[in-house]
């Protein structure tokens, strides 16, 4: 863990995130200030700091996209760097259990991520308090805490992936590239591919559009894109942070009841209801994180010492 804090790349990445966070917040903060003028009683304004898109993207979108990179950077050479410098043989010949090595790698990574992430969120909140002068209520705070937990799980998943690659591949460069390739695949190609497959399966086009086909198109696209942890994460967090969102599905896929309720009730959803909506997403994220670490653990424990 000491290792992580003092390493150069860790400083670089946290500096980058702090910088972007601060810039986004100040931009959003000023925009909100303008809008707030003349409004009688704003609801849950504080969360807008994280979700409002500003000029480029919101903080939540930014973490959804670059969060994986933090995980990858912290984990891609966890095991194979020790292997290359021959310290792994030394470690396993000390009186410690072999699983404590891999557990320590994972846990120290998670701790670092947690510390950094909480710090950034607090920093942005503080900045937001100064800029817009709205004190967050208890519901906003609890929504933020849930958001932090989901984000931690999500980044830990990527940490797990990169540690897994560092166990499998002997060269640090290979494992870094493999993890990055997976990241790019999930962030660009899955949503791209989802569109293509949906087009092929249920083509929309021509003058007459059959509503059924449109629905089918939307369904296929959504199902496929949910294979990407990135989409899971962004749907979950945007629902949690934006109480006005009442479902994770797009307008097209809503049933008639949902549509009625959406237009009828313009009030924000209570926290528990938001949570209910994203529970499947949450469970999926926890499951893939655990699965990933489990596979990693098994492979590491079964590796023959000569290959270590």
């Amino acid at each position, binding site marked *: 863990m000491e290792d992580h804090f003092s390493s150069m790349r860790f400083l670089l990445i946290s500096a980058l995130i702090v910088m972007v966070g601060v810039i986004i917040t100040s931009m959003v903060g000023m925009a909100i200030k303008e809008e707030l003028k003349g409004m009688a009683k704003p609801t849950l304004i504080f969360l807008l700091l994280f979700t409002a898109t500003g000029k480029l993207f919101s903080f939540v979108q930014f973490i959804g996209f670059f969060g994986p990179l933090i995980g990858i950077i912290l984990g891609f050479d966890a095991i194979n760097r*020790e292997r290359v410098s021959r*310290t792994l*043989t*030394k*470690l396993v*010949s000390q*009186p410690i259990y072999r699983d404590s090595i891999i557990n320590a790698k994972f846990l120290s990574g998670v701790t670092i991520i947690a510390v950094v992430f909480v710090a950034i969120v607090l920093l942005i909140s503080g900045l937001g308090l100064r800029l817009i002068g709205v004190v967050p209520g208890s519901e906003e705070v609890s929504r933020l805490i849930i958001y932090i937990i989901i984000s931690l799980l999500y980044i830990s998943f990527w940490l797990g992936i990169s540690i897994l690659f560092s166990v499998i591949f002997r060269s640090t460069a290979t494992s870094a590239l493999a993890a990055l390739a997976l990241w790019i695949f999930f962030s660009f190609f899955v949503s791209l591919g989802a569109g293509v497959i949906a087009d092929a399966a249920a083509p929309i086009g021509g003058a007459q559009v059959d509503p059924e086909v449109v629905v089918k198109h939307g369904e296929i696209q959504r199902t496929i894109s949910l294979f990407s942890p990135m989409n899971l994460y962004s749907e979950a967090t945007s629902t949690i942070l934006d109480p006005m969102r009442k479902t994770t599905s797009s307008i097209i896929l809503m049933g008639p009841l949902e549509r009625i309720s959406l237009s009828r009730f313009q009030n924000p959803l209570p926290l528990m209801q938001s949570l209910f909506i994203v529970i499947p997403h949450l469970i999926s994220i926890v499951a893939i994180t655990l699965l990933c670490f489990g596979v990693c653990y098994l492979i590491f424990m079964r590796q023959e*010492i*000569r290959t270590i």
Partner: protein
Amino acid sequence: MVGQNIIEVEGLTKKYGDQIAVNNLTLQIREGEVFGFLGPNGAGKTTTLLMLLGLTEPTSGKATVIGIDPTRNSFFVKEKIGFLPENVGFYDDMNARQNLQYVARLNRIPDEVSRQRIDYWLNLVGLLEEVEKKVGTYSKGMRQRLGIAEVMIKEPKLIFLDEPTIGLDPDGTNRMLDLIHSLSREKNITIFLSSHLLDQVQRICDRVGIMIKGDLVAMGPIVELAKKKLGIDKEHYTLEEIYMKYFKEA
């Protein structure tokens, strides 16, 4: 000097797939002796060491190290004995003291105790002046001596050294051998070292075992082996001659 058996190995066999790395190995090491485990590269020396440490499981056979079965209870064996792997690695961005401190903590040695031991052993291996330098700047000989200090931090009764002099220059080799010799004579530590460099082993070992292609072809004091293989009349033998004779027969 000759004490009880500290290592007993019976019929130890290790197969990797069809390949036999160690074949039906039986040997005893007595307390306090320096045992040289000889053989060409790939003869199964390191595999044997790893099995004695419990780091890899034997296919069949039984070993007892300081009264413990390493396959069943690797944790306690690793706690009690020292192992210096071939080309030992260090954390290059830490200095010598930090490296040793880290290993001491992994061995659950309290910091107050380990601080004294670190100074003592660094002094003994002649690295006390270089203690503040990062290990990345060390020469091969210095790293190897630091390795000895690291192994001795937990003050074991028995140490395994895997090719301790490999890649060292003549001066470094001599210092290393003297160090190993003094550990045995002054601290009465049992030393089990593997090597393919024969003249060095000859200098410091009480007994040797010669291993070729997984089989232990000879074992005993060098003088006895010389008698058996080269005839008594020859006064100036070298281990190399004995070794080559065995090697050709195998």
